[in-house]
């Protein structure tokens, strides 16, 4: 059923990683991404691989879930690999017509592929172990400094969390509106592009009106429950660091140091 749609891809098990503070995980993901761009040797990628495997094991999420995200970038991966393979100048391995594959290209393409794959898996680890709510909270707290330059961090994160709540409702509503219009003979499939665009009007108008209504209702309900922005607000689930988070930061430091050292001495 359409109701079952969940946003993000949270995998509910209990692990150290799941229990970690979202800020720690956000920061860790950033460290990992930076490290991928610093790594330029086989040894450095080896370290990254060990780090990633360790983290995946800690997360208790099945490996098959980790690589699901790869499907989305398969095409991008193929293109960038073949570009690197054939367009890098250097010693020739073989050639088919005007296409020359080089040793340098092979090396570059390999690193490029690893980098992309690790990037996707690395961020999947975070989204699989963190609920969208925690993620919003983590973002709000760690981006708090932006408040000083006038970015409404609390409001943005409140909006994100409301969007999370209402997207499944609106998806279901879209389905209902489509059916109601189809019962009146509407046709959403056939016709050329212009006809198709026109046929969307009976779907979009009720959908927008409903979304606006929900927004007004919700604003009223929030006000009735004394919502008046982030000021003076307390938290039911305030974020606070535990020992596992300190450990996490220490591991990041060690990992990043190793990658930097390898870059300098290779």
């Amino acid at each position, binding site marked *: 059923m359409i*109701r079952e749609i969940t946003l993000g891809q949270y995998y509910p098990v209990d692990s150290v990683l799941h229990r970690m503070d979202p800020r720690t995980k956000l920061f860790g993901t950033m460290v990992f991404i930076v490290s991928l761009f610093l790594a330029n040797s086989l040894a450095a990628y080896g370290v990254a691989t060990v780090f990633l495997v360790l983290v995946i094991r800690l997360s208790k999420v099945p490996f098959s879930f980790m690589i699901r995200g790869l499907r989305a970038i398969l095409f991008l991966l193929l293109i960038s690999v073949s570009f690197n393979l054939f367009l890098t100048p250097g010693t020739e391995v073989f050639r088919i017509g005007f296409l020359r594959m080089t040793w340098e290209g092979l090396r570059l393409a390999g690193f490029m592929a690893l980098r992309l794959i690790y990037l996707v898996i690395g961020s999947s680890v975070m989204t699989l172990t963190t*609920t*969208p*709510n925690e993620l919003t909270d983590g973002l709000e707290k760690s981006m708090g400094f932006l408040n000083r330059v006038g970015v409404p961090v609390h409001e943005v994160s409140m909006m994100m*969390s*409301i969007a*999370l*709540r209402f997207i*499944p*409702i609106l998806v279901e509503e879209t389905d209902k509106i489509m059916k109601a219009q189809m019962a009146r003979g509407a046709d959403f499939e056939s016709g050329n592009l212009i006809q198709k665009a026109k046929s969307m009007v009976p779907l979009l108008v009720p959908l927008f009106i409903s979304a606006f*209504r*929900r927004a007004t*209702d*919700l604003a*009223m*309900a*929030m*006000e*009735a*429950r*004394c*919502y*008046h922005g982030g000021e*003076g*607000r*307390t*938290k*039911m*689930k*305030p974020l606070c660091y535990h020992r596992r988070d300190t450990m996490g930061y220490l591991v990041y430091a060690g990992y990043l140091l190793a990658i930097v050292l390898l870059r300098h001495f290779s």
Partner: protein
Amino acid sequence: MGIIRASRLIYDYIRRDEDDHVEEVSRAIDGLDLDIKAGDFVAILGHNGSGKSTFAKQINGILLPTEGTVWISGMKTTDESHIWDIRKTAGMVFQNPDNQIIGNIVEEDVGFGPENLGVPTDEIWQRVDESLEAVGMTAYRMKSPNKLSGGQKQRVAIAGVMAMRPQCIILDEPTAMLDPNGRREVIRTVHELNQKEGITVLLITHYMEEVIEADRVIVMDDGRLVMDGTPREIFSRVKELKSYRLDVPQVTELAYELKQAGVDLPEGILTIEELTEHLLPIFRKANAL
């Protein structure tokens, strides 16, 4: 003076065109005087457009009077310095269960009110626990609101209001979008809160069977208070109720019809037991048993 009081309350919806000229004025509340005693369970009946929902929104200052005054626990709703105290005192539950739940997890939604009030974290948890318990939703505290039934969602909304520790709850057609089971669930919960926690309840509805157990029933029509009394008093005036586009439960209607046809029944019969009890002697006397 009761917990909710309205005096010569008038409210106009004003529609303006682009240049801010008044295009249309429609009077939703027209000189309403009302005093509600703390601890009472009061039902407000009225057809769609009778002004009952507009009145509900006056109580916690979502709408402010065009003329006249509303007091909540002695605080005037027009007094801006008290607006949060007023909203804390008079909590509100709305019609559409989806459009009033903010949190993505039941317990987080219940904590939303206390968070806004700046309640310390430990106490928020305590209040959330108590409120969920009071509406019988503890078992669902970790669920997503999207997976609950309509009746359960409304109970979560009620818990969200309870967590603000209000003295009274206003429910604006809380059952209009629910099925009969959900309806019963919500009404039962509200009665429990009224009896166990002593919360003043103002239930706005047009389902007649929901008001039978109220302490007091008020009927609104055209923005005015037109009937006010106990359920029995109100339901004995079947014809008048019908003239306000309302109805009575079948048992009341049958009793009324029989009385009209000359059967010697008392007025305002509300339950099956009452009707049976009063009909039996009549049958006995007529030797019809």
